[in-house]
């Protein structure tokens, strides 16, 4: 047979086909098929978690001030899961989404893995890795030079809170260094504390005995949206007795409102008027606790002072708040106001609680006073099911400070923020005023160096643009954040702290708890990266500064300091993780007040109310004016809190963001809630793209129609709109602080903004 080109092709084709068919009779293709499928079952890029013995370690969650006990499950040396600690007095096993996703913070992409020095422009994201030695030296040098130039007060430090030993350590550092400027954000706790001081003359935090109250009147407190210690609040709701009634008063059907026995819509910002209106009915109908009012209170009725001047009593004051008038202000029908007042007064253990949403904004002192007056009318002061005064944490005394002339001079300077000044004598910190004050100064910023610890003011402060402008004027910013948050991203140096689970942290009584607890978060894992406890970093800096500053810190490290500070509690805490201090239950102690009258003062006489023209004016309702021209901005923007979103210094974990509903965030855009009626007048539909404008800024949003919001309002979730962090959070939605500014309470300086005027138009 002759082989030519044609039949060569034919034979080759035949051979290939024959070969292919033949090979099907061999095991090779079948084996290959099997191998390939086995490969798909073990793709090398699909992880196989390592097995190991299972153990548990107890600690506490430090992601928010809630102070919940946690139980960390380990496989070998790896923590694999965080669960609620069943026998912890705060949360009793319950944990919020943030706590449950705690491991994502430790291992996630937002961690700062080593000290960093800024390379490019601020916020540009160009960093140079440096050693701890270089980082600490850089900070020490700057701080030393400020002292050398006799300008120690130009060092400011922003912390997340003033509670716990780390803020105390920082306070000690600043004092001996010579700066009074330790700043922190204020919350409703601060307003309540101040009201407490005015009415009872005592320093302490306000605790709510929600466990034992049977009628909870919540003035917009998101008790199931993250208010107080979320773990505690959820547990209390789940285990509450069927007779406990919760009345939720707020303009939006929040999760709390949805779960409440009754939801009452109210015009935003008018809660204080409602409280006085309820007081009006209770007094008019003589439903108050006469025994308590007569024996233990002062200023209920009109009174005359030694100089013969007559002062208005609380009963007279509230006369002006008739149900008709209050109905006009609040939008709540008159009969409802009356029946609510009667139910409140008739309940054996009624309790009024305050702090809008998660209570992260203080609100006005008037509001706090109004709520406390309501509780006082029923005699629910330091009583089961009422409000309690929880004393401040006492620590062991540290060695006395020696202060050089520089420090003394610095400490005599007034605080930058005006807290504690004649204008706001009872206020401890007014971080909300800082950006405005810096921006109003011509020339050099009064803050020349800023240390930021456990805080993210670039995100959490109202009016982000103003904050950024102020920070631009601060020549030296150091962040001690564990994560690449907005402030860290804008800093000159980052000296990263250990993350949660990696560090010691003591947690004093969480907000709203009615009795005192101290919880200790102990490290359960070794630090993953090249990080340092901020306490250690500060002690190191103090020692490097030398002189009295060095002498003030005789401790080797933060752990020694902590042990020394907590003293006899230390060993208990190391062993048990938490200690409870039961309230003093003796009546005499309970009903003793440190006011001038030694009684509960409705209308604080001794402590005059600052900022008011009539220094003897009693607690009243001053409508909290908010920003914006009514004509240009016909709607009201109110931020709302959700337990699935964090608006605080520690932002959302990827898992939390994953749970956010599609009616809150869609791709990279926030959805605003508006009532269908309002939408109709604006020609907006579900899913319409719109532009939200306020006096502070503009944002592109998507419209979500929600029947559960009062017409005329726009609700915007807090916790979105981050510009820093990784792709799991950055660029998602709108930060409420970009659109809302701070409104100063004339009495305290606190931010009392509950929203802002706004406009919504089709994009």
């Amino acid at each position, binding site marked *: 047979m002759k082989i030519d080109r044609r039949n060569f092709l034919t034979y080759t084709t035949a051979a290939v086909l024959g070969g292919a068919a033949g090979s099907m009779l061999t095991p090779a293709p079948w084996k290959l098929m099997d191998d390939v499928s086995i490969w798909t079952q073990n793709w090398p890029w699909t992880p196989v978690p390592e097995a190991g013995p299972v153990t548990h370690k107890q600690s506490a969650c430090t992601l928010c001030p809630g102070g919940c006990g946690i139980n960390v499950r380990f496989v070998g040396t790896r923590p694999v*899961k965080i669960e609620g600690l069943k026998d912890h007095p705060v949360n009793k096993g319950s944990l919020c989404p943030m706590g*449950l996703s705690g491991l994502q913070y430790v291992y996630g*992409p937002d961690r700062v893995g080593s000290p960093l020095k800024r390379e490019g422009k601020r916020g540009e994201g160009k960093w140079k890795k440096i050693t701890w030695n270089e980082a600490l030296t850089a900070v020490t040098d700057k701080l030393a030079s400020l002292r050398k130039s006799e300008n120690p007060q130009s060092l400011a430090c922003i912390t997340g809170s003033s509670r716990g030993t780390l803020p105390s350590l920082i306070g000690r550092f600043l004092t001996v260094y010579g700066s009074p400027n330790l700043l922190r954000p204020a919350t409703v706790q601060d307003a309540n504390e101040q009201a407490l001081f005015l009415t009872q003359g005592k320093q302490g935090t306000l605790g709510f005995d929600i466990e034992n109250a049977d009628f909870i009147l919540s003035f917009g407190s998101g008790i199931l949206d993250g208010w107080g210690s979320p773990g505690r609040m*959820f*547990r209390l709701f789940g285990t509450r007795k069927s007779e406990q009634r919760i009345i939720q008063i707020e303009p939006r059907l929040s999760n709390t409102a949805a779960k409440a026995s009754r939801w009452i819509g109210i015009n935003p910002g008018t809660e204080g008027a409602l409280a006085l209106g309820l007081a009006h009915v209770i007094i008019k109908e003589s439903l108050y606790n006469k025994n308590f009012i007569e024996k233990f209170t002062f200023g209920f009725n009109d009174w005359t002072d030694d100089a013969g001047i007559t002062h208005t009593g609380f009963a007279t004051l509230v006369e002006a708040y008739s149900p008709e008038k209050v109905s006009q202000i609040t939008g709540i029908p008159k009969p409802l106001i009356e029946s609510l007042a009667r139910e409140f007064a008739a309940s054996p253990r009624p309790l009024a609680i305050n702090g809008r949403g998660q209570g992260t904004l203080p609100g006005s002192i008037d509001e706090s006073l109004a709520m406390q007056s309501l509780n006082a009318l029923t005699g629910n002061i330091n009583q089961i099911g009422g409000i309690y005064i929880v004393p401040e944490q006492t620590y062991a005394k540290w060695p006395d400070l020696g202060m050089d002339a520089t420090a003394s001079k610095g400490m005599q300077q007034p605080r930058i923020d005006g807290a504690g000044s004649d204008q706001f004598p009872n206020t401890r910190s007014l971080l909300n005023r800082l950006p405005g004050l810096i921006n109003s100064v011509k020339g050099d910023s009064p803050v020349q160096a800023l240390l930021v610890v456990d805080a993210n003011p670039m995100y959490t402060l109202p009016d982000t643009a103003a904050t950024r402008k102020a920070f631009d004027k601060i020549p030296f910013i150091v962040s001690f954040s564990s994560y690449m948050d907005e402030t860290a991203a804008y800093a000159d140096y980052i000296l990263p702290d250990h993350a949660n689970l990696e560090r010691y942290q003591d947690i004093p009584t969480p907000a709203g708890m009615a009795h005192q607890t101290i919880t200790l978060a102990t490290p359960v894992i070794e630090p993953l990266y090249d990080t340092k406890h901020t306490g250690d970093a500060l002690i190191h800096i103090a020692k490097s500064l030398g002189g009295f500053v060095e002498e003030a810190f005789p401790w080797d490290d933060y752990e020694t300091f902590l042990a020394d500070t907590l003293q006899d509690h230390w060993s208990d805490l190391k062993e048990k993780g938490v200690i409870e201090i039961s309230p003093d239950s003796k009546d005499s102690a309970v009903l003793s007040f440190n006011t001038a009258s030694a009684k509960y003062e409705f209308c604080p006489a001794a402590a005059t109310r600052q900022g008011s023209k009539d220094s003897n004016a009693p607690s009243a309702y001053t409508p909290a004016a908010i920003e914006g021209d009514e004509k240009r901005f016909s709607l009201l923007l109110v931020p709302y809190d959700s337990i699935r979103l964090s608006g605080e210094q520690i932002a959302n974990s990827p898992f939390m963001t994953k749970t956010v*509903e599609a009616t809150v965030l869609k791709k990279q855009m926030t959805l605003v809630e508006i009532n269908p009626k309002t939408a109709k007048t604006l020609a907006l539909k579900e899913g319409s793209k719109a532009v939200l404008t306020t006096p502070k800024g503009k944002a592109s949003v998507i419209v979500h129609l929600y029947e*559960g919001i009062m017409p005329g309002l726009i609700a915007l979730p807090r916790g979105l709109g981050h510009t820093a962090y990784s792709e799991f959070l950055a660029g998602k939605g709108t930060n409420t602080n970009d659109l809302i500014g701070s409104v100063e309470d004339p009495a305290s300086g606190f931010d009392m903004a509950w929203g802002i005027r706004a406009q919504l138009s089709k994009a």
Partner: protein
Amino acid sequence: MKEKNDYEHSKRYGMVIDLDKCTGCGSCMIGCYTENNVPFKADETNKLDSINWIQVYKLTNGKPYPETEISYLPMPCMQCDGEGKLGHSPCVSVCPAVATDYDYSTGIVSQIYTRCFGCRYCMAACPYHARKFNWWDPVWPADMEKYLSPDVSPRMRGVVEKCSFCFHRYQLARNKAYYENRQTEELGEDEYQTACAEACPTGAITFGDLNNKSHAVYQLKNSPNAFRLLERLETNPKVYYLSSKKWVRRQGDNYLANEEPGLIKKIDKQHH
């Protein structure tokens, strides 16, 4: 489906979710993610491309302000007993490769990821959208692979997954009982609990053996407020819900304009 069905006497694990207690916090979802190595992506806002073994839905009564009410409804896999309670759940009967199966000893519907070849017929069959497809390769950024649990294998792209009632916890509990020389039939109620039930901070989720009189779920499921989702499809879910609100109970199933939820149930019972 080789084992014989002993419906009355075998274990039938189930769940009772009290919607009056559910606050919509989402802890059950996160408890589930962390327990079951559920992956996450940068954008999870498309809920039809987001792996959730338990998903919390928001129900509303649709009334205008201020009469509006909402209720949250967490929806895990219903672990259906199927028509006639024979174990032929909508999904198990359709899977062409036996990648999902009904375990007659527990009533739990399993999913074998390495067997599944991703035809998604089960997803088409499930009326609850409990089944989720791995449209993407799972990626754990930074050091996040380090926190993965060895109890549940991470899934590869292209397969279906769903809630397993934390079956691995059942296996662990059974192994423990075995080592302690105890009968696995006598597993205590608290020895086997799902991650979502444990994570729920208000205790809205109760889990246990529906056939066991000493388990809480046994009583709870008989509450007059109890209902199951889409019962009329005869899927026989083992997840029960409690709600004191009639409008919520009504949204759990479909009813003609003239029908009342309670009445229909009675007719169904007579029917069987």
